């Protein structure tokens, strides 16, 4: 069986992100945003995945299913990442040129007028110099510890004897990355490091400055908290501290970096040259997102797709009554996230609500969800919140929320030892005249109103008894009250989700062999589990048509004769990050559709608590199948993976179909129709 290596596949995904930045007909700030995203993605890739490969290459030499050893993977990844970064630099130059045409520039000190220089000087002395601490390096003063992702200026000086002396000036991260210089028209941005560099002779005034250069360090963040601890929160805090001090996995240098300074840094940081990248004038491209997202420059971005109010929730005074009528679905960000917030808020103030339970994985900054839960607890309801402290890079946030919720009287739990809780469920227990009824929200995405405007996700509201029973059982298991139960409707990892997928695919294989209608259509963020991939190969060989919309990593190679002729793999990129997970099976002509929190990776299927839920209501099922169909017809943001493991843009034949824009139109249409209906009533 042939499989694509994970990290290389991811780099291909990031290349597709970069391709959005390379689109010449896109507005320049739209391109800049995608460039910033590709840089941010790459930062995290180095911190986690490259760091992992570095460790693996030290400890293992065996070959995996891709046929590569860890060292071979690392070498290929570094080479590919290097080439990628060169393309990023080229792309940036192009974008900056386009921006310059619109009078938006990132400049050097030399480009400033006298009055502008004066402004910059005043700013430097008033706000920057007080927080600068140049650090000389000599036998008495060892090389300073430089924080992960910190931007620095390396300085080589010469003493009176002509000997080299070195110093490091850390660029303060609390200050804005780009200083806005006053201009009459357009915008002028001066990178802060350039302003600092201009005043180096004053900062390092004891010796002659021979050379300087900008550099940035990326450290390993591949540390996981030890689950076997009595106090997970304290352990997480320790892990976060450790993460700031991981070994360097990348050293970025500005273009034209001084050779002696480079050798000095390499030695001090203990970095091998294959981890060094020298190219860009702007290090830390992720910070370009600050410029790209400036509100008053929206004319230089693509017209945003804005969420519309959800049709099904129009003029909804009683959300519980609405859910009692039938199951309801929301598709974000096309439809507003507000009904989800309204649901939680309504539950928090409703005197008939007895208990609220929720899983929190990544929560937004000004979270209304947290406030609602606090209010609920303070008003005497039983509130149980499962906070996943180990949500990577959100640990500090989550520690904060957990502490706040506990203080408000919520019962905060951290899930099961050894498993990350990744499922997205809200359960509300309500007393009604005819007894207890449980209301559920199940989703493919997090309870985060910020990402709900940036990621595509689908959520479902229901109050059907079996779902309620399953959700209760799941929470009882997660809170440690009970051993893993048998579920009626939900499919839960790690108990039975992998087996579910394998059984379902087997079902399609059997149908194909009996000449019954068969088919598999998945939409997920990643497909990496080799067992599932192998089963899909089997399905293809049996004649089952397999259509996979995999946004990111895909280990499966489609279209290979004798293996995967019946498999097609596409990836969609656009204004929104495709995030929803949909799993559909033809099932001999009676399609079955599932939504869930899990991608098809070993971590989802084996090491996390995830949920899949069936979409039973026929009209909702049709709606989800329609989403899949539209995504498959996308010829604007879609890429198709070939048997040569190369992604190619799907050719635009006929009408232009951007699935994200089409879905937005459908949501708007539904809203308008519903509004008219209500006006007539």
């Amino acid at each position, binding site marked *: 069986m042939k499989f694509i290596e994970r990290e290389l596949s991811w780099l291909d995904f990031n290349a597709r992100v970069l391709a959005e930045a390379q689109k010449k007909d896109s507005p320049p700030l739209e391109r800049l945003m995608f460039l910033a995203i590709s840089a941010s993605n790459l930062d995290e890739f180095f911190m986690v995945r490259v760091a992992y490969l570095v460790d693996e290459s030290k400890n293992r030499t065996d070959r995996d299913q891709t046929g590569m050893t860890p060292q071979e993977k690392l070498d290929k990844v570094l080479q590919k990442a290097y080439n990628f970064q060169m393309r990023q630099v080229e792309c940036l130059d192009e974008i900056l040129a386009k921006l310059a045409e619109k009078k938006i520039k990132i400049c050097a000190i030399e480009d400033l007028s006298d009055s502008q220089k004066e402004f910059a000087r005043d700013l430097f002395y008033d706000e920057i110099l007080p927080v600068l601490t140049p650090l000389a390096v000599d036998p008495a003063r060892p090389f300073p510890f430089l924080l992960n992702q910190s931007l620095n200026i390396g300085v080589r000086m010469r003493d009176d004897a002509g000997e080299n002396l070195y110093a490091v000036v850390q660029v303060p991260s609390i200050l804005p990355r780009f200083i806005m210089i006053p201009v009459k028209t357009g915008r002028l941005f001066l990178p802060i490091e350039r302003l600092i560099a201009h005043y180096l002779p004053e900062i390092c005034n004891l010796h002659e400055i021979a050379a300087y250069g900008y550099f940035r360090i990326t450290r390993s963040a591949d540390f996981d908290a030890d689950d076997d601890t009595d106090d997970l929160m304290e352990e997480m805090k320790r892990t976060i501290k450790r993460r700031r001090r991981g070994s360097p996995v990348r050293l970025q240098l500005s273009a034209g970096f001084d050779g002696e300074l480079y050798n000095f840094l390499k030695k001090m940081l203990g970095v091998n040259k294959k981890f060094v990248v020298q190219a860009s004038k702007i290090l830390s491209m992720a910070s370009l997102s600050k410029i790209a997202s400036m509100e008053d420059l929206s004319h230089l971005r693509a017209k945003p797709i804005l969420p519309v109010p959800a049709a099904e929730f129009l003029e909804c005074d009683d959300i519980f009554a609405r859910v009692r009528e039938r199951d309801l679905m929301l598709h974000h960000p096309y439809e507003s996230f507000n009904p989800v917030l309204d649901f939680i808020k309504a539950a928090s103030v409703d005197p008939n609500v*007895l*208990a609220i339970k929720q899983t929190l994985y990544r929560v937004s900054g000004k979270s209304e969800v947290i406030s609602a839960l606090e209010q609920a607890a303070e008003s005497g309801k*039983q509130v*149980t919140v499962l906070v996943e402290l180990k949500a990577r890079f959100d640990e500090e946030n989550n520690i904060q929320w957990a502490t706040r919720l506990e203080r408000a009287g919520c*019962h905060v739990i951290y899930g099961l030892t050894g498993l990350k809780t990744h499922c997205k469920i809200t359960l509300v*227990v309500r*007393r*009604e*005249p*005819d*007894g*207890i009824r*449980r209301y559920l929200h199940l989703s493919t995405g997090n309870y985060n109103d910020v990402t709900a405007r940036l990621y595509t996700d689908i959520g479902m509201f229901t109050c059907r*008894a079996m779902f*309620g*029973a399953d959700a*209760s*059982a799941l929470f*009882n298991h997660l*809170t*440690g*009250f*009970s*051993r893993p*139960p*048998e579920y009626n409707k939900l499919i839960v990892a790690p108990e039975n989700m992998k087996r579910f997928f394998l059984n379902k695919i087997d079902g399609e294989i059997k149908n194909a062999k009996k000449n019954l209608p068969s088919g598999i259509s998945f939409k997920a963020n990643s497909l990496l589990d080799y067992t599932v991939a192998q089963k899909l190969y089997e399905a293809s060989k049996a004649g089952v048509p397999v259509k996979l919309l995999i946004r990111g990593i895909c280990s499966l190679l489609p279209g290979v004769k004798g293996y995967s002729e019946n498999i097609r793999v596409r990836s969609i990129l656009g204004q929104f990050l495709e995030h929803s997970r949909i799993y559909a099976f033809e099932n001999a002509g009676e399609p079955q559709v599932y939504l869930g929190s899990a991608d098809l990776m070993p971590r989802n299927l084996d090491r996390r608590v995830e949920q899949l839920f069936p979409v039973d209501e026929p009209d909702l099922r049709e709606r989800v199948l329609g989403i899949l169909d539209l995504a498959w017809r996308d010829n604007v943001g879609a890429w198709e993976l070939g048997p040569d493991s190369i992604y190619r843009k799907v050719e635009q034949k006929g009408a232009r179909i951007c699935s994200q824009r089409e879905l937005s139109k459908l949501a708007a249409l539904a809203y308008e129709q519903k509004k008219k209906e209500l006006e007539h009533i």
Partner: protein
Amino acid sequence: MSKNKGKIISAVDIGSSSVQMHIAQWDGQRIVTLDQLEKPTHVGQEVFSTGHISFETVRSLSDILTGFCALSKEYDIARPIVMATTALREATNLAYVLDHFAVTNHVNVQVLEDGEASALLFEALKSRYPSAEKVLQVYGGTGTIDFALLQNGKVLFTQSIQTGMLKIAEVMRETSEFSRYSDLVVKEHLTKFLSHAGQIYKMLETDGIVYASADIAPLLKILNGFEINTGTDTLVVSKEEMQKIYGEYKRLTVDQIARRHKLDLAQSGNIYVTIVFLMLLLDSTGVNHLYCTQINLVNAALNLNLRQGARRAFNENMREGTVSSALKMAEHYRCDLKHAGHVAYLALILFDKLKKLHGLSRQQRLLLETACILHEAGSFTNTADMREASFDLIKNAQIYGLQSRMTLLIANIVAPQDILGIAQSDRRGGVLNQEDMIFVNKMHSILHLADAIDESHLGKARLLDVKQDGDQLLLTLRVTEDYALERYALIQSAALFQEVFGLKLDYIVKKAGRMEDK
């Protein structure tokens, strides 16, 4: 609208190998389970090996109860109903354990005897199958197998055999090196126990068999081909289907069953034994199919407390079952059933009329009734010292629906009494407390009086009226024949009655047709 509609409760069973809780509500027509929880423990193992429950285990159980109580609060349930059976009951430090739960968790754990537990289970089972004239309910527990024969929903007779699925599986395992015919070993073992329970074969003259146990779910899946909703559903299995399964499985080892169905060895052993047992039941009766369902104590508690009218029906059935069980025992010991019935009739009139004087409950009335039925059981073994012999027989009897403490009280009611102040010993070597003594003496004096009214065993007298006038109790009797023997007995019993109730006994005898003085 059903009065209980929307009522919600939680019930906990502290069992030998796990603590279970169900939270359920009544939707007007049926019990709907909202939550089911189960936490494994090793209480049974600890008690069976050491005889007591360690404090570490007690604290662990307490933590589980804390969690369960917190979950109950989420449904606005103030406190769950908490029960326990064998594992806790057999612990020598039971009192300390219960005290810990009462103080730490604010729960009162009801420790049920086997008879009580069976009664609850059998009552709950009734809702799981269509009603029939005569039904044999069988409950396969780990330590005992309980039988109850019902006619039109009323318990006729009950019996337990002191071997359960766990024990049988152990026997099968231990004998596997001597014989490859495990099914024969199981059958022979069961038949031995069934033969001890002499009345069992009468119970097998039945129209239908319902088999239930707490852990039958894997077997139901095998019988059905796929999972059923074990909380509420019942599977109907025909004799042919059972024969087919039996034919296939009797040749398999426990390991093979475990591998085939991805179960552990304990579950597989249970399946094997149950299949053999069910086949034995079907072969021993003329029944063509049986009903199989999963039920446990928690289901039974929910049934009792949620289903409208269930408690009243249960209490009535309990009474009838207890009386029926006592009558069967009396019949077995060749008692004069007419006399026993007549004494009971008379005693209950006296009990009811004297209620303001004795202040006793309906449950205690049942104990009196049972004592009356069995008061001469001892004549079967010892006519000279009949009352002592009756005491011994009753003390060790299993009477449907009654705890052993209740049967001990009944035995004391029947036994010869010195007048007040003399305590009887219970079978654990302790003594009855003062409250029990007072109760026993009151009931004994009523029984003695009722027995005196029918001294000749000929049913001569009907008690027309009982009236209290100051310190005198006046009985109006209608008699049909010469009443001299009874008058003599009445004089003898009057003294005891006066000592207990402080009332002088007097009576008017009305001969059928005319009044006579005493």
